[in-house]
């Protein structure tokens, strides 16, 4: 079984062992995506509420970090103006590889309601930083944010185990319209 020519660490059983560690590490990484606490506008409030007691994205291992140097993930939540965009780039530059970007809300995706008539809003943060996941909505519900994060976790695992990074961004699909906070059926009006 053991090949005498083989250098230590390259034997097949050792490789299997190593791969398993990679997967274990990937599993760990995937469950501890620390995000940069970075909210600019309305979507930032939804981000805050997603971190609140009901949606509690902490349970996904997502803990806000105040400094980009400790963050794996940047959630761009809210409108980015031209003045701000350069700062966003600066923050992104300070993050360590591998870094991920989630663009939350129509404004960060494409300028949203301001794309047409505004002179100062940047039409989409992807002009400055590469985006991995787009979440549409104005603002997206916290559920949509969690959906986007789940999609991102797939990518993190893929990257950590195979070293490949998916180039095409993921777009969170629209959510089935539901009524009420707990998906109640609309009550019959009398």
């Amino acid at each position, binding site marked *: 079984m053991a090949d005498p020519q083989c250098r230590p660490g390259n034997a097949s059983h050792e490789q299997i062992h190593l791969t398993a560690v990679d997967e274990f590490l990937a599993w760990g990484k995937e469950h501890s995506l620390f995000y940069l606490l970075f909210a600019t506008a309305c979507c930032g409030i939804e981000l805050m509420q997603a971190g609140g007691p009901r949606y509690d994205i902490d349970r996904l291992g997502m803990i806000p970090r105040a400094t980009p140097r400790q963050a794996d993930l940047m959630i761009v939540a809210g409108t980015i103006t*031209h*003045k701000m*965009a350069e700062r966003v780039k600066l923050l992104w530059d300070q993050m360590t590889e591998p870094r991920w970007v989630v663009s939350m809300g129509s404004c960060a995706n*494409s300028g949203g309601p301001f794309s*047409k*008539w505004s*002179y*100062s809003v940047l*039409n989409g943060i992807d*002009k400055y930083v590469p985006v991995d996941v787009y979440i549409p909505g104005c603002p997206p519900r916290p559920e949509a944010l969690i959906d986007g994060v789940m999609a991102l976790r797939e990518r993190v695992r893929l990257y950590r185990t195979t070293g490949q990074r998916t180039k095409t961004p993921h777009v969170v699909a629209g959510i089935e319209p539901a009524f009420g906070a707990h998906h109640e059926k609309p009550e019959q009006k009398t």
Partner: protein
Amino acid sequence: MTALAAEPVAARMRQRTPSIEARTTENGQPFLFVAPADLVLLLTLLRDDEDLRFDALMDLTAYDLLKYPAKAPSDAICAVWLLWSHVHRHELMVQTHAARSDCRLPTTSGVWPAAIYFEREVFDLYGVHFDGHPDLRRIMCPQDWVGHPLRKDYVYPATYHGVSHLRDGQHFESQPAREAR
């Protein structure tokens, strides 16, 4: 409502500030119109007068009269002071015009410090220079921004620092023809 009738106030102030006029907008809102030279004196008098006592500046803003369909067309920038008296609970609007080419007005930040910020905003968005203002810089747009966006003849920039204003495939035609207004 609490808006004060303009005519009695104008009559009271006419001696000190002769350029004062009591006017009404097209829809009957009273306001005082005054020449820029008398502006600061008038506002100081309005603030200190015992019966008027406009101790708070509620708003300071401006609007562009270029192509505004009025009886007497003008291309000036119309600056508006909205005053409020916490003592007597009444309000008053004061307006003045600044010429478009040489856009200057005296600062009123000596009368109410609240005007410091408002004037910076009017300067940024309309390009009205307030003479004597302690800190007249752009407040909203970046310092190197070109033009004053809220003027009616403002042309939207195509790029800022080399980054385009439009999405791929979006054209300038999709923006409303502002000149046509």
